């Protein structure tokens, strides 16, 4: 058994989890909403990216247009569905979010059909050898994307005025507002970034599997939830580490634990253990 194979496969999977979960944790950090419908936005990214690629023939162009378009969709989503219920107790938003997710799946089915759709000519399918491990180009692109997008996000948060406003709002919204920070703007940007990341993950998953179905958000919906809890809700760095760790643990678990534990159950077994020892999550500050 080649351990480096398993490690690399796990890290690639972890990068996909990271792209999905970081957006989720951003929304939670800012608004205290468990945004289940985030997985529906992930699926939307997959559909839009695939259809645009088939239409234009250019994966790169489709990718850029999709993440921007879905980013704006995320802003509209916030404005339409979450903003009106911001003052309600948190479970209201949670229930709304679950309902929206179910509705999105069924809307995709009505529009795009229940059967899967595929790329006419899937790009990035050649394999290359990296450090003795054979990988599809698409998987390498996933890792590069995760590093660039999430690295870019870290720069945005740390080095720009928007980032400072965002961090101020996360730590104390009322105080931030009294210093003249436009809360609505911060929230819009937050949803734009989160949704764009989910869309990027959606397109890449669509490409790796060459298959988009209305229900493809089902597994990410609950696994990303486990990841952000592990990472300490709202903590981006923790979420990143939890995502990568889960990818690697699942990778080894698939081979060594398959008789005892379903791969999708590993996240939750891990979650239960962590909550028993560190109920604040692995990486929460307090």
């Amino acid at each position, binding site marked *: 058994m*080649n351990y480096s*194979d398993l490690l690399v496969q796990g890290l690639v999977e972890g990068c996909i989890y990271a792209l999905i979960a970081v957006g989720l944790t951003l929304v939670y950090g800012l608004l205290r909403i468990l945004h289940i419908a985030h997985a529906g936005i992930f699926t939307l990214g997959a559909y839009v990216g695939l259809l645009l690629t088939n239409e234009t023939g250019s994966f790169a162009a489709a990718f850029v247009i999709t993440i921007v378009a879905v980013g704006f969709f995320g802003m509209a989503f916030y404005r339409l569905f979450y903003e009106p219920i911001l003052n309600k107790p948190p479970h209201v938003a949670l229930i709304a979010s679950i309902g929206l997710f179910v509705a999105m799946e069924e809307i995709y089915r009505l529009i795009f059909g*229940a059967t899967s759709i595929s790329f006419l000519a899937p790009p990035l399918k050649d*394999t290359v050898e990296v450090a003795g491990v*054979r990988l*599809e180009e698409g998987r390498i692109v996933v890792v590069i994307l995760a590093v660039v997008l999430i690295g870019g996000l870290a720069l945005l948060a740390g080095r720009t005025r928007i980032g400072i406003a965002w961090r101020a709002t996360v730590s104390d919204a009322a105080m931030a507002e009294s210093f003249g920070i436009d809360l609505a703007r911060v929230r819009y940007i937050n949803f734009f970034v989160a949704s764009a990341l989910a869309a990027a993950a959606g397109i890449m998953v669509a490409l790796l599997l060459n298959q988009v179905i209305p229900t493809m958000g089902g597994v990410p919906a609950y696994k990303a939830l486990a990841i952000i809890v592990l990472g300490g809700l709202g903590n981006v760095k923790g979420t990143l580490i939890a995502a990568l760790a889960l990818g690697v643990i699942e990778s080894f678990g698939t081979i060594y634990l398959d008789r005892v534990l379903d791969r999708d159950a590993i996240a939750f077994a891990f979650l239960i253990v962590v909550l028993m020892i560190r109920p604040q999550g692995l990486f929460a500050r307090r």
Partner: protein
Amino acid sequence: MTSWKFSIAAVAAVALTASAASADTIKIGFNTPQTGFAAADGKSVLTGAQIAIDTVNAAGGVNGKKLELIVYDDQAKPKFAVPIATKLIQQDKVAMSISGSYSAPTRASAGVYQNAKVPYVSAYAVHPDITRAGNYVFRTGILGSVLGKAAAKLVGDKLGKKRVVITIMKNDYGKALAAGFKSVMANYGIQVIKEYQYSLRDRQFGPIVSSIKGDNPDAIFDTGYWFVAAPFVSQLRAGGVKAVVVAQEGYDGVKFIEIAKKAAEGVIIVTALDRDSKNPAVRQFMTEFKKRTGYGADMVGASGHAAVMVAAAALKKAGSTDRAAIRDALASIKVDAITGTLSFNALGEVQKSLKVQEVREGRWRFHSEIVDAKLLTPPDK
């Protein structure tokens, strides 16, 4: 009540009365997933069933009456399937019913039909307990265990591959296939060098592929459905595994090839539908199916068609809509359906030969046939 809500209610009421008013038809109940995760299979099976209904009705119907399918969406969930069964029996007063759904809902409804003594035919659900509900329950699809045995013969005998890796999808279907395969593999000199398990939701198989590469088998027997299998086979080939992949009905459909593209080439399956068949009924079904759905025929669609044809033949033989007479007709019937010549044993399981199909140049093609009555005999209790 707001006016739009009222108009919806009114439309619904009219629609309900309309369906109840057509008393000159023979009603056949049909539960199938039309929404949710199994909606794609639901669409195929319903299309196949409706083609059969239209064919029968175009030829004058049965006993002077047209057939009518009463369809309800069970989302492939037992919690919906049970009330649907009750509704079909008590409210719609169907002569008999067909399950165009998965094992769990079919198994749950089978008991309801048995208690009410209403004949129930499972088109493609595979769990062994379905027909054990009683003597009113039949199955036109082949059992997973029988399919697994046929696959073992294909791998060890026809293809002569002896060192085999089995990849098992963790549900009733996958487990039954693997158990059937293993129960007879010694007869064909097959040795299973490793087994892997994965869930229905898995799409990323990197770790399993890496491990199989180290096993270096002659053949891989996979028990999954097409939507799991297409990424699996793609990733196997991308990972450099060259062993032949042998599979089963779960792969049967154009979608598998559409997704896996070149990686699909050379995949061999044991199934019920022969796409290169010269049988005019099969050819007509294939054309009509493509016309109605926009995609090529699959095993699930063909199963829906076969189940309706069996129902029509039983209704004709019974000569009435008396449910006990229909049951007796089913028990003794022999029907030439597009999935083969079908007859039932004492348990209500189907006996038929199987087709082997192979992907060549982006299409499912005829490979061979498995005619081995002894091997393919379903259990009768």
